[in-house]
């Protein structure tokens, strides 16, 4: 089946166009390179926003799916004349559309934040664009091989971005990142290869229907193992305790502009994969491990929150807060009912926006003060009012203030949990209280108190302020008009729930 739409390819590979331009710009022309860096992220953002808008208006996403012949291996043994095929297939559903939109949006934001990169700007933006292609591709991929390909593109490009432009311990962080995630993707590859070897296809929708049949060459035990393998490989990415140490290092060492993408998008690939592949392929097995997910979620939530409370490095507070917030995603997934799943997806997107905003501010603070240690900062409100105001807004969003996206996500996720397991829900709420405590502790100590720095520090310029405002706008939009997210997700949730017989 060949189909001619090239819209998705255009979105995914749009950064490539500017990347080629970039290659011919002299190294020293920092201004031009930065401008190109910003412009390169725009086409994807504009196109995906337009697509999201169209989808809200009722566009049928199957019309933009793409499929081209790509690789054929030898003949598949069970059926006559059908080779093992891997096509070049791109397509979207509501969830991946939202993710691709988020990825392209945060890329634009991160490209503005990258103004703070002062050296080797050209090399930086080359890897930056590759990273963006990888992120967009991961969500647009309609088959596992393509998914894996883009997944590895993000792996390699992020390795270089951390290792070259990161902080003091950058190489160690980069290596740790590489090995943990390399292991995760290795396990994923094992699953992909096994599915491919046994079914002869890697197309996601074909596999989903195939795996629901009764006459498949897998025992239930096989399926359970595959599910556990998926949980490990995506669990490293999410990250699930105890696989989280690498992401702490990355949060602290990577340049903040990259952490915007890392925390906002890359960690979410884990949740995305767990939902699309784990729940999509193996609904019954997912149900069997759902209690495990709840426990893991609870551990993540509480462990992250407790540790966030005692950190004196703001980035680490945020890193642990990510661990904690991902716990809510796991709780939502583990609840395995409509509210839970919807809450989990909401939380994925909402946390993507909020953590991006927080790291956007970290980027500003770090560029002015060269530090983000809580003890060394204080009184920000008195000399950088715009930054301080944004920080407060971001903090409140993060702790789940009603009318912001964090609230609605956590609420729906917990409604899901309470429906199934009252006790776990109750324990989980302790985490929410802790969240308020550690966020306020960090934010207040930065914003108020006696200024520890010269009052001449420059506040955000308009160029820097605008992207932050746009993020705030979306956080509020989701908070007051959750249909912005829930409409596109309706069909996805329905399909997933049908899988588990709900």
């Amino acid at each position: 089946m060949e189909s001619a739409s090239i819209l998705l390819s255009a979105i995914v590979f749009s950064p490539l166009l500017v990347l080629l331009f970039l290659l011919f710009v002299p190294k020293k022309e920092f201004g031009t390179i930065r401008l190109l860096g910003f412009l390169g992220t725009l086409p994807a953002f504009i196109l995906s926003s337009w697509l999201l808008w169209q989808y809200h208006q009722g566009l049928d996403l199957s019309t933009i799916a793409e499929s081209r012949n790509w690789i054929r291996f030898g003949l598949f043994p069970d059926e006559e004349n059908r080779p093992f095929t891997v096509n070049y297939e791109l397509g979207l559903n509501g969830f991946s559309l939202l993710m691709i939109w988020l990825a392209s949006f945060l890329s634009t934001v991160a490209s503005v934040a990258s103004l703070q990169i002062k050296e080797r700007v050209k090399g930086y933006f080359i890897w930056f664009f590759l990273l963006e292609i990888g992120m967009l591709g991961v969500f647009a991929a309609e088959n596992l091989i393509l998914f894996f390909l883009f997944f590895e593109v993000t792996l390699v490009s992020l390795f270089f971005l951390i290792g070259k432009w990161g902080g003091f311990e950058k190489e160690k962080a980069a290596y740790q990142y590489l090995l943990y995630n390399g292991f995760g993707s290795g396990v994923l590859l094992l699953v992909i290869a096994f599915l491919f070897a046994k079914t002869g296809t890697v197309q996601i929708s074909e596999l989903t229907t195939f795996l629901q049949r009764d006459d498949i060459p897998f025992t239930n035990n096989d399926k359970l193992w595959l599910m556990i393998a998926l949980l490990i490989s995506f669990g490293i990415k999410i990250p699930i305790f105890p696989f989280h140490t690498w992401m702490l290092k990355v949060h602290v060492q990577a340049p903040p502009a990259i952490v915007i993408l890392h925390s906002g998008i890359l960690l979410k690939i884990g949740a995305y994969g767990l939902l699309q592949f784990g729940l999509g392929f193996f609904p019954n097995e997912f149900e069997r491990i759902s209690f495990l997910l709840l426990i893991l979620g609870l551990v993540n939530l509480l462990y992250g929150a407790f540790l966030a409370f005692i950190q004196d490095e703001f980035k680490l507070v945020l890193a642990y807060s990510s661990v904690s917030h991902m716990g809510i995603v796991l709780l939502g997934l583990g609840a395995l009912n409509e509210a839970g799943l919807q809450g989990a997806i909401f939380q994925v997107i909402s946390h993507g926006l909020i953590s991006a905003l927080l790291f956007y501010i970290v980027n500003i603070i770090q560029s002015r003060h060269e530090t983000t240690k809580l003890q060394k900062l204080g009184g920000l409100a008195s000399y950088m009012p715009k930054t301080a105001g944004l920080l407060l807004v971001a903090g409140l969003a993060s702790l789940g203030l009603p009318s912001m996206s964090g609230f609605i996500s956590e609420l729906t996720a917990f409604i899901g949990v309470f429906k199934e397991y009252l006790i776990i829900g109750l324990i989980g709420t302790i985490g929410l209280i802790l969240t308020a405590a550690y966020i306020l502790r960090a934010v207040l100590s930065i914003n108020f108190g006696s200024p520890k720095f010269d009052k001449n520090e420059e506040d955000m310029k308009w160029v820097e302020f605008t992207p932050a405002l746009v993020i705030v706008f979306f956080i509020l939009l989701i908070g007051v008009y959750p249909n912005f997210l829930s409409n596109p997700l309706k069909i996805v949730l329905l399909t997933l729930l049908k899988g588990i017989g709900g």
Partner: protein
Amino acid sequence: MDLDQLLQYQWNAMLPEFIILGVAVLLSVLDLFWKKQKPSVIGWLGFIGIIAATISLITLFPKENVSILYDTFVLDHFAKVFKLLLLIATAIVFLFAIGYRSEDSAFPYSEFYYLFLTALLGAMMMSSSADLITLFVGLELLSISSYILVGLRKKNVRSNEAAMKYVINGGIASAITLFGLSYVYGLSGSTKLGEIAYQFSLSQTEEVQYLLGISFLLVFIGLSFKIATVPFHMWVPDVYEGAPIPVTSFLSVVSKSAGFIILIRMILSIFGQASLNNENSVLEGFQTFLIILTMLTMIVGNAVALKQQNVKRMLAYSSIAHAGFILASFVSFSPYFYLDAIWFYLIAYTFMNVGAFAVIYYVKEKTGSEHISSFAGLYHDSPVLAISMTIFLLSLAGIPGTAGFIAKFNIFLSTLSINPPLWILAITMIVTTIVSYVYYFGVLVQIYFRQTENVKKTTIHYTTYIVIGLCIIGTILLGVFPNIALDFL
């Protein structure tokens, strides 16, 4: 046999071999009698010979299977595709050799060139022979030529040591193989593979089965020398390090491919049908043993490579590891991806490995050292080479988008598509692949993250750049459109 009968043979099936033989003879005669010779002319003549042989081989592709000289020479599909692989690999290595300049002023360039051709001839004979005698003669032709090639830098201690180790180890390995083959001959009374296979497929008494087992072990272990896997891998690091760098790349791609060719030819046809304990064939009976060897190869290769500071040595261990990956495909005995997977891996490995060696050659010329730190700052003084090396290393590490990924994925499929799947091999492959990230990315860290004061410019021969260019094209093209090669099979 009279002349008429001799002329009835379809000699044209052997055209590629004749061309290589002719050119090798021509070059050695030229070397003898041409007083004021220019080595480069000899080199280019050799290269033209290889290209001509490749073209003549391609014209033979549509031909039906040919068998002449009482089966000592067969031209079947297997022979065609693997000969093509050998020719392509040697052509690239040869181009690399033309650009090679030794620090030794008395370096015998002409011998250097035509010994590649004789070695290639041996390898081609191996892929095209269905008789134990010619198989073994081909093997020895390849081996002896490579022993000399390794020791060509006469004044260099390391080169001498390498040649010595290579000869002794190689001699032992050949002896073991031959010993095993003597059992095969004794049990079957024939040297023809087809005849042997038929004899062994008949039911055997227990004593014979026992002897078959012994001969299998001897043959396999002897041949593991050529493909550089456990237990005959110890020579690899020293020989790779001591040999002139084009020879190193020749050993790692052509010689290794030849090893796999003879392994498939001999072992599959002799032992594939022979029954071991009245239920399984010898091969199936020893599968567990082979799996353990394969796992050891992958683990040893990748684990020891971690500690290497010399990049050539590192790639030597990595070459052991890659041999392990290919062997994983061999021992899976998967009916679906068998030859494809091995063939594709070898061709992908050729491109990425020779390319990497070519970049190492540049760095060696520039800094005079092969230590990993001599790669520091390569990105700043030669971005193109740095990016090339990145592509080769990513491909060796098996990152998608490169030929190395498709090759590894193929092998995954062959280990998992059988019933029951060989999980243990697949998992070992994954884990060792991730271990290999550490040392491959270690070189990348030097290239991109480290600085160097040494900004001396070096010029290397333009053919080396052509080699790097070809290898990049091969690595990327096969990574993105693997069907170019896969459809071919």
